[in-house]
């Protein structure tokens, strides 16, 4: 008996291991090997030549990273908590639309966000050009770009949705009668909030703050594009040291610091988010919300709604509007400034004007992006399915492998890119000649999300359903087709869209890996944005607009699918 049970247990482990084999191999080669290289370079080469100057060079970006992440998190909470309350407790016209709008920034590519704020507040942005024209000024009055303010603003734009989702979700599930019970027992509104609401929401507030901090800490594209050279975070400094100074040991050392920080943050976050238990209102969410009553409540509601709309919509609207607006002298004409709508920037995307070998017309960048996204989808979905099925086996190794697969989530894309450069520098795996490395890096970013979305869907199918189908006469293959497939189809579609959009927008790792003649869309936007000339600027905005529309469509689709576990 014992032998039989032992054999069965062994066979379960072996099945799981078989399923794990491909994903594990992938992770070892493309995640742990590059990470190991960073450790080696950072510790051995970087730390060996450690002098006072080097310490300062690590310390300055490190301190600034902490500083800006802390400020960003604080501001995000300041905006997000009232918004979370608004969503959790009030009904107002347009709530559904606003809820969808708040979820869009989260997945938007960093270059799109940077381009949006540039189109709104930059020196050539709508606001500045409008003000210059109105007031007859010679230079742009708003100088938010290349400042700490721009970084903070973009981070708030990005992460408010996290606070709204996590805290708002907990808040709307919180039974409002708990607060009422406290009030009946003699607690004033404020006292009831302090004694009941706050302690019950604290775990989710802390968890969301940690997650926001983690994202702000590892933010790269936004800081690079909106902060300018004066505001180098660890991420930006790694990029500068590796690609501009060609100082790989220094970059490795910085990456090491970055890695340790994100690792600690990830561990603390998963600890903090693990214990969230909120008493759920028995009557469902709808009974807990109401329309605002009284003048003060209504006023505050409207201020919040308009504030959120302004924060979330105005940059994106500015981007789209600016990409079809001609505000400068038309090409080839001098002096006369023309205003008006134009599709010129979009038409230019298809033309190679410079006839230069290294100049890549945007349309080719778009094609590259689509191909990479397709490959990313294929890789991450096939590996994700294997891992998700493996996680369903009651095998002991899952306890070790499950957290292992979540590690790429807390690893910054720039660190990943640097690791790739350090490791894959000779054929057959050479950054310069092996084109699959970009979608592989993208897959590493997407994989944790894919696994986390497929696994609960697969696990939600009770075995009894399959057994019932079998008893009714369905063969195993038929069972999979009739039961498993329809139930997980939505989750699979959701993760496919997710992997696709992540790949389309990925910027951090791609800047390290993309060869000059094969840029992706975000890399092309970055290039065009940093070049002078109205046409380049317009084209950058046009590309960013297209990318924004495609990724937003992806998010809206995912939202429509209403997957279990939400989209975070």
């Amino acid at each position: 008996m014992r032998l039989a049970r032992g054999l069965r247990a062994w066979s379960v482990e072996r099945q799981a291991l078989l399923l794990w084999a491909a994903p594990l191999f992938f992770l070892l080669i493309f995640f742990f090997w590059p990470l190991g290289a960073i450790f080696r370079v950072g510790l051995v080469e970087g730390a060996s030549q450690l002098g006072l100057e080097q310490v300062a060079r690590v310390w300055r970006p490190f301190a600034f990273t902490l500083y800006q992440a802390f400020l960003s998190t604080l501001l995000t909470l300041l905006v997000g908590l009232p918004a979370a309350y608004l969503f959790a407790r009030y009904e107002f016209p347009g709530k559904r639309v606003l809820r969808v709008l708040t979820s869009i920034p989260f997945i938007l590519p960093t270059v799109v966000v940077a381009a949006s704020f540039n189109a709104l507040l930059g020196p050539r942005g709508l606001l500045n050009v409008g003000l210059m024209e109105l007031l007859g000024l010679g230079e742009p009055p708003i100088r938010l770009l290349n400042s700490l303010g721009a970084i903070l603003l973009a981070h708030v734009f990005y992460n408010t949705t996290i606070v709204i989702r996590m805290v708002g979700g907990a808040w709307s599930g919180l039974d409002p009668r708990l607060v009422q019970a406290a009030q009946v027992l003699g607690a004033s509104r404020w006292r009831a909030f302090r004694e009941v609401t706050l302690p019950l929401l604290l775990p989710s507030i802390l968890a969301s703050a940690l997650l926001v901090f983690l994202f702000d800490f590892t933010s790269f594209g936004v800081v690079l594009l909106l902060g300018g050279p004066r505001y180098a975070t660890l991420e930006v400094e790694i990029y500068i040291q590796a690609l501009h100074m060609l100082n790989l040991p220094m970059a490795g050392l910085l990456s090491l610091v970055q890695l340790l920080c994100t690792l600690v943050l990830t561990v603390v976050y998963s600890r903090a988010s693990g214990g969230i238990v909120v008493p759920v209102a028995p009557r469902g969410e709808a009974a807990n919300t109401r329309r605002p009553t009284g003048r003060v409540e209504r006023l505050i509601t409207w201020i919040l709604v308009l504030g959120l709309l302004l924060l979330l919509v105005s940059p994106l609207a500015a981007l789209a509007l600016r990409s079809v607006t001609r505000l400068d002298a038309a090409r080839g004409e001098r002096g006369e400034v023309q205003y008006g709508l134009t599709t010129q920037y979009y038409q230019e995307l298809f033309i190679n004007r410079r006839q230069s070998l290294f100049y890549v017309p945007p349309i080719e960048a778009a094609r590259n992006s689509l191909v990479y996204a397709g490959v990313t989808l294929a890789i991450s979905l096939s590996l994700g399915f294997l891992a998700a099925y493996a996680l369903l086996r009651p095998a002991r190794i899952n306890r070790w492998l499950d957290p292992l697969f979540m590690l790429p989530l807390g690893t910054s894309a720039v660190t990943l890119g640097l690791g790739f450069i350090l490791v894959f520098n000779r054929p057959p795996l050479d950054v310069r000649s092996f084109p699959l490395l970009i979608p592989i890096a993208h897959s590493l970013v997407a994989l944790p999300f894919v696994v986390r979305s497929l696994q609960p869907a697969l696990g939600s199918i009770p075995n009894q359903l399959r057994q019932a189908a079998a008893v009714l006469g369905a063969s195993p293959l038929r069972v999979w087709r009739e039961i498993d497939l329809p139930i997980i189809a939505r989750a699979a579609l959701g993760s496919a869209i997710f992997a696709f959009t992540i790949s389309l927008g990925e910027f951090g790792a791609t800047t390290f890996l993309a060869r000059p003649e094969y840029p992706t869309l975000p890399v092309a936007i970055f290039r065009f944005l940093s070049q002078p000339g109205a046409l380049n600027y317009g084209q950058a905005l046009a590309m960013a607009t297209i990318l924004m529309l495609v990724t937003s469509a992806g998010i809206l689709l995912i939202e429509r699918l209403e997957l279990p576990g939400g989209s975070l």
Partner: protein
Amino acid sequence: MLQVTDIWKSYEGKPLLCGVSFSVDPGETVCLLGASGSGKSTILRIIAGLEMPEAGRVLWRGEDLSSVPVYQRQFGLMFQDYALFPHRSVAENVAFGLRMQRLAQSEIDTRVREALELVNLDAFGQRRVTDLSGGEQQRVALARALAPRPRLLMLDEPLGALDRTLREQLLDELRQILRRTQVPAIYVTHDQEEAFAISDRLLLLHEGDVVQAGIPAEVYERPVSAWAAQFLGLGNLLEGRIVSTNPITEVETALGPFQPLCSHPNRPDGHRPGEEVTLLLRPSGALAANDPQAAVNRIEGEVADVVFRGDGFRVDLKVLKGQELRFYLGQAPSVGQPLSLVLPRESVLCLGKE
């Protein structure tokens, strides 16, 4: 002590309470009985100050409470699902209201112990409320509501979430506790047995208004309308028309002539001939009709079902038009057999149409 006058309130555009008025006297337990959705809980929430009425006033010893916020009313409210604070222990839950009164810690400790003793949970102080069973949670909720010694205790379906045996046991305990503490109480329920068992006075709520008020026995004896009789589960209803009132009221029905008891509490002048009425035929008191001549208060039918009830039998009698009437008899007829019953006059009550 408490006076509720002419409360109006609508919910999602539909009228919910239409001029509800009643009062609660010292030491008295008043029961609000009504179907779900009849606005019972809303009345409690308005008295507690959690909701504002659209019209009408809540007075405490003559003082209008409309400008007194929830937390200063010194009322106790026991929520339907208890609303215990999940992040606090049993003792901390009970102590909450005492802390709000800024009592000294030693005083709080004593009062918490007393409250927990009162509900037989002496040893539970340090437990987490999430680890308690439904009945234990109910007791903690009661202790928490009683500990601050409220001027008025309100209970919103306090036994609704519990199973039947536990409900009966807790109902007895609750009645004793209310009697011992002498706290005036409003008890909301949709269960007429619970209401009859616990209330000193019973208010029947229907279509946004109090349709009947009185001590339980009175309400049982003289339901005000066919709806009340049906809601209270008092017996069989039969449509009819009054044919004469002098010297004795006689009602013609599809089952033949009846001579009911007719003193209407709201209509001392009695009924007029030709008026449509509903008869309440009480299930107990029916006798086998031995006298074939007795034509009045006589019911003929076929036995459809017989259920043994311990002290007798429940007999479902199929009468005309497929209608079934229910009676409690001492002896069991057999199913399918024809049966004639005669009801004494006390078992037939004439109820007016509203």
